């Protein structure tokens, strides 16, 4: 039983990392209708910038905050000077551009910081706390809590603020949005900037566990995509819950289903996607889009 709870809590914590990337994907998708494959790469760049600062003696919290600000600017700049050229055209082209951007950012990180693993200091202590006879690391709890807070902030942004409403309106119909006076281009920059901020948070949470490498979040991106599809593209709460389900199930499957083990656990979320898409194509929490003419 103790192992089980331990596995669940660890699963929630890794699931939270997928969740943060997944939230960033949802945000960009809500604002532009695109899936940004470079989201993980941008997050890694943010983590490297935080790491670079700590290596020069800047306190960790300040370094992470600085990397968050930098990420916002980077996200906005990517929209302004790269994605804007492709937003009006074929969405497939734009998606391929984001894949190219991922490759480019990974290359730049490798060139600037080498491909060697770098130690990234942890925001939370590794000490364990005892809980119901199970010892759980403070880092697992801290990571999960941070993501829960971010999730509610994002849900609140979309549902309860003028900015969130404007971001959604721009994504659905940029022309009508402009007819109502919404500054479409500026809103798109803000959307990409906020998504990059979420990525930076994820990067800072995961880097201590995985150690920093240019490809650190490649796996997490795949899981995050799985979470986005499972949870439904329109629901921040949905994708977080889906990411947790994925994190927990993959952990449990690796231990309790010998056939799967640690080698095959990467397949678990995809089997799950397959089943969900057959039963509920709009995702677990997504809304069915009804089109009427």
């Amino acid at each position, binding site marked *: 039983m103790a192992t089980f709870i331990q596995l669940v809590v660890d699963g929630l914590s890794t699931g939270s990392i997928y969740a943060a990337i997944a939230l960033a994907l949802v945000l960009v998708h809500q604002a532009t209708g695109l899936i940004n494959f470079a989201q993980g790469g941008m997050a890694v760049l943010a983590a490297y910038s935080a790491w670079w600062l700590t290596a020069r003696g800047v306190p960790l919290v300040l370094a992470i905050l600085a990397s968050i600000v930098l990420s916002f600017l980077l996200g906005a700049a990517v929209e302004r000077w790269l994605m804007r050229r492709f937003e009006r055209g074929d969405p497939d082209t734009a998606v391929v551009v984001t894949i190219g951007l991922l490759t480019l950012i990974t290359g730049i990180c490798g060139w600037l910081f080498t491909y060697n693993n770098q130690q990234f200091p942890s925001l939370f202590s590794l000490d364990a706390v005892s809980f119901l006879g199970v010892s759980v690391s403070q880092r697992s709890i801290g990571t999960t809590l941070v993501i829960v807070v971010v999730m509610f902030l994002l849900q609140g942004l979309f549902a309860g603020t003028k900015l969130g409403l404007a971001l959604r*309106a721009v994504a659905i119909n940029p022309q009508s949005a402009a007819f*109502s006076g919404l500054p479409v281009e500026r809103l798109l920059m803000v959307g990409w900037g906020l998504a990059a901020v979420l990525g930076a948070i994820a990067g800072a949470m995961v880097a201590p566990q995985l150690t920093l490498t240019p490809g650190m979040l490649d796996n997490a991106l795949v899981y995050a995509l799985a979470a986005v599809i499972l949870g439904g593209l329109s629901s921040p709460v949905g994708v977080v819950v889906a990411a947790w389900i994925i994190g927990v199930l993959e952990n449990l499957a690796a231990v309790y289903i010998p056939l799967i083990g640690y080698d095959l656990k990467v397949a678990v979320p995809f089997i799950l996607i397959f089943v969900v898409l057959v039963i509920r194509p709009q995702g677990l929490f997504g809304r069915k889009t009804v089109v009427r003419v």
Partner: protein
Amino acid sequence: MTLLELEDVTAFYGPVQVLEGVSLSVPENGAVGILGANGAGKTTTLRAISATVRAGGRIVFDGKDIRGTRPDRVAALGIAHVPEGRGTFGDLSVRENLRVGAYLRKDRKGIASDIDYCLDLFPNLQDRITSNASALSGGEQQMLAVARAIMSKPRLLLLDEASLGLAPSTAKAVYDAIRRLRVESGIAMVVVEQNANLAFTLVDSATVLETGRNVLTGTSAELRGMDEIRRAYLGG
């Protein structure tokens, strides 16, 4: 006082010239129709005004040439475009659509009372206030599109084919509401309409376009029932 003046406006879609010199004059509180067959340039004229297509000539609104302004800035000047195909936000609720319409406004009380006014003008929307726009019928979507435009408190409303695809009784209901809006608010209007008889219930005067040019302009009374009007539509 003239609110909007178009002088010799031209427009291209790529190499194809769609407007070859359209003129139009809309007085303050006035309503002017643009009639004509498919492809005559009616929609493009509206798009030239709202800056969603690049135009030549002069487009003067409230004394200022607004050509080359960004679409959202044109909206901020007080021009609300209700596009062909309605352009409602499908995944947003009716209330959210209306709030987007009021994006540029800061007066919470005014916004709330204008939402009430829209629901009074289009009672069909009242029961659908929390439904997604995509779940509305065609007529309700058209009403929502007009209501969203009203929410920005415009001085000029650009209405594109508000009757398109609607049952005759629904189209009439939409035009009845817009006529009431005109009387109560005094918003000036440019009305593009295939159905000339429906247009004449709303506008004071109209111009007929043929291949991107004015061929006939007059008051509703003068134009009603003229052979040229029929010809413009039948292309004969």
